[in-house]
C-alpha cells in the first residue's frame, strides 16, 4: 500500500464523477439521472476520505464530512424520488426530455 500514491486513489474517484456527469447529461429516465447523481456524490465522498487519510490523518474532518454527506445524499434522494413519483402520477412518464414545456 505504501507504493500507491494518493493520485491513484483520486483519479478513479474523478472518473466516477465524470461518469456521473455523463449519465446526467445523456440519460432520459429521471431515475437514471438520479443514479448518476449518486455516483457524483459518492465520488466526492471518496475524495474527502482519501484526502483525510493521506494528507491530514491528524484530524477526522474529511471523514466526518463524508459521514454527513451520506446523510445529505440520502435526504436528497428521498426527496427527489418523491418528486419523481409524483410527476409519474401526473403525466405517467418520467422521461426528462418531455419536461420542457417552460422554456425561452
Amino acid at each position: 500500500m505504501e507504493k500507491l500514491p494518493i493520485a491513484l486513489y483520486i483519479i478513479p474517484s474523478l472518473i466516477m464523477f465524470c461518469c456521473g456527469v455523463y449519465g446526467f447529461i445523456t440519460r432520459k429516465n429521471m431515475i437514471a439521472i438520479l443514479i448518476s447523481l449518486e455516483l457524483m456524490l459518492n465520488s466526492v465522498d471518496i475524495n474527502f476520505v482519501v484526502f483525510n487519510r493521506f494528507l491530514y490523518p491528524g484530524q477526522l474532518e474529511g471523514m466526518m464530512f463524508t459521514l454527513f454527506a451520506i446523510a445529505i445524499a440520502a435526504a436528497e434522494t428521498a426527496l427527489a424520488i418523491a418528486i419523481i413519483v409524483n410527476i409519474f402520477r401526473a403525466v405517467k412518464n418520467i422521461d426528462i426530455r418531455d419536461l420542457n414545456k417552460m422554456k425561452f
Partner: protein
Amino acid sequence: MDYSQFLVMHQEIGLLVLILLIFLFDTFSSRQVPRGLSMFSVCLFGLLTVGGFVFPWDKAVASAFGGMYVTSPVMVAIKNVLNVGVFIVLLQSMNWADGEFMRIRRGEFYELLLITLFGMYLMISARHFLLFIIGLETASLPLAALVAFDKNRYESHEAAVKYILTAVFSSAIFMMGLSFVYALAGTLYFNDIAGACFGGDAMLIVAVAFVIAGFGFKLSLVPFHLWTADVYQGAPTAVTSYLSVISKGAAAFSFFVVMVQVFGPFYGKIWEWMLYALIILTITVGNLFALRQKNLKRFLAFSSISQAGYIMLGVISGSAQGLGSLIFYILVYIFSNLAAFGVISSIENKTGRVDMDSYNNLYSTNPRLAFTMMLAMFSLAGIPPFAGFFSKFFIFSAAVQPGTPALYILTLIALINTIISLYYYLLVVKAMFIKNQEECVIPAFRSTGSERLGMWICVAGIIFVGLFSCIYNSLISAAQMNTEYIFTLFAN
C-alpha cells in the same frame, strides 16, 4: 461539552421553537378552522421579526462550537432583513394558504418554509464548511418540495424536477470544490483555511471555480442560472417570491463571507476576475432575457438574475462598505420585488392571470395595485426617490471604492445595463398606465387584508428605506463592527 453554547443562537432557537409550535398547532388543531393556522404562523413570525429588532443587535457578538458558529451585529442584521422579507411573503401568501386546496398541507407549507429559513441562518453564521453545507441543503432541499406544492399544475411538477436535479448537481459540484479546498488547506474552518498557506496552482483555481459555481446556483448567476426562470414560473407565487428574495439574499451574504474570509488572499489573483466575468454575464444575459418575457413571473425571474449581478458588485468590492451596501441592497430588493410579487399573486389569486398583456390598462380598474406595481418597477430600476436608487448608488459606490480602472469599467457596464433594465421595467408600467385605449381584462377588486398589509409594508419600505438614512448608516456601522469574523485576512 458546554451545551450552554446553544444559547448564543437566539434567532435560530427562536425560529426552531416557532416551527415546533406551528407543528404542534397543526397537529392538534382542527383543520376545519379557516385561517387559524396561517393567522397563528404569521402572528408568531411577526413577533419573531419584531423581536429580532428589539434585541440589542450590536451586543450580539459570539463565537461558539469551536468557531463553527459565530454571530455578530452584521449577521443579526441580515437575519433581521430576511425576517422582514419572510414576514411579507407570509402575509402575501395567506390568501393562497387559506385556500381549499391548501387545507391539508397548510402546516407543511409553513414548516418547510421556516425550516429553509433556518438553513439560511446557518449559512449566514456558519464558519465551517460542513455546517455551511448542511445549512445550504436545508435552505434548498425543502424548497424543492415547496416548488412542487401546487399539485394541480403541471408546471409545478416540471419546476420541481428541474430544481431538485440542478440543486443536487450543483451541490455535488460545490462539494467537489470543497474537497479540493480540504486537500489544500487540511481543514474546513473558514478561519483556518484563510490562515493555511496554499499556493495558487490549478487545483486551487478549480476549487474556487467550483465553489463559485455552487454559489452560482443559489444566486442564479449566469451561466448557473438556467433553472431559475422555469422554476420561478412553475412554482406557486408565494414560493417564487420567497426564492427570489430570501433565498438569494442569504446566499449573497454567505457568498460574501466565503469569498472574503476563505479566499480573501486570492482576491486580485483569482476570483476577482472570475466574479468580474460572472457579473457582466449575469447582468447582461439576465437583462437580455427579461426583455422578451411576457409572463410576469418569468419576467421577474430574469430581472432577479440581473439584480443578483448588481448584488455581486458588493462582493467584488470586498470591503465593509460593500458588505453593508449589499445588505442594504438586499433589503431594498426585498421590498421592491415583494411589492411586485404581492401585486402579481393578488391578481393571480383573483383571476389566474400572470401574463403582461392582461395587465394592460390596469390603472383604470385597480389603480392602487397598478401604483404599487409601478413603484416596485421604479425601485427595481433604481429611480429616485425610491429606495432602489439609493441601494444601486451605494452598491456602485462600493464597487468603485478600490479604485482600479477595471472596476470603473465594470461599474460602467453595470450602469449601461441599468438602461436595458429600465426599458423592460417601463414596459410593465407602460402596459398598466399607457395602454389606456384597451379594455382591462382584470376586473376591479379588493385585495384581502393581509395582501394589502404586505403591500403597504413594501410601499412604505420602497419610499422610506432610502430616504431615512439611519438604516443604511446602521448597516454600515454593523458591517464595520467585529470585522474579525469576516475580514480576517482580506487583502484590501
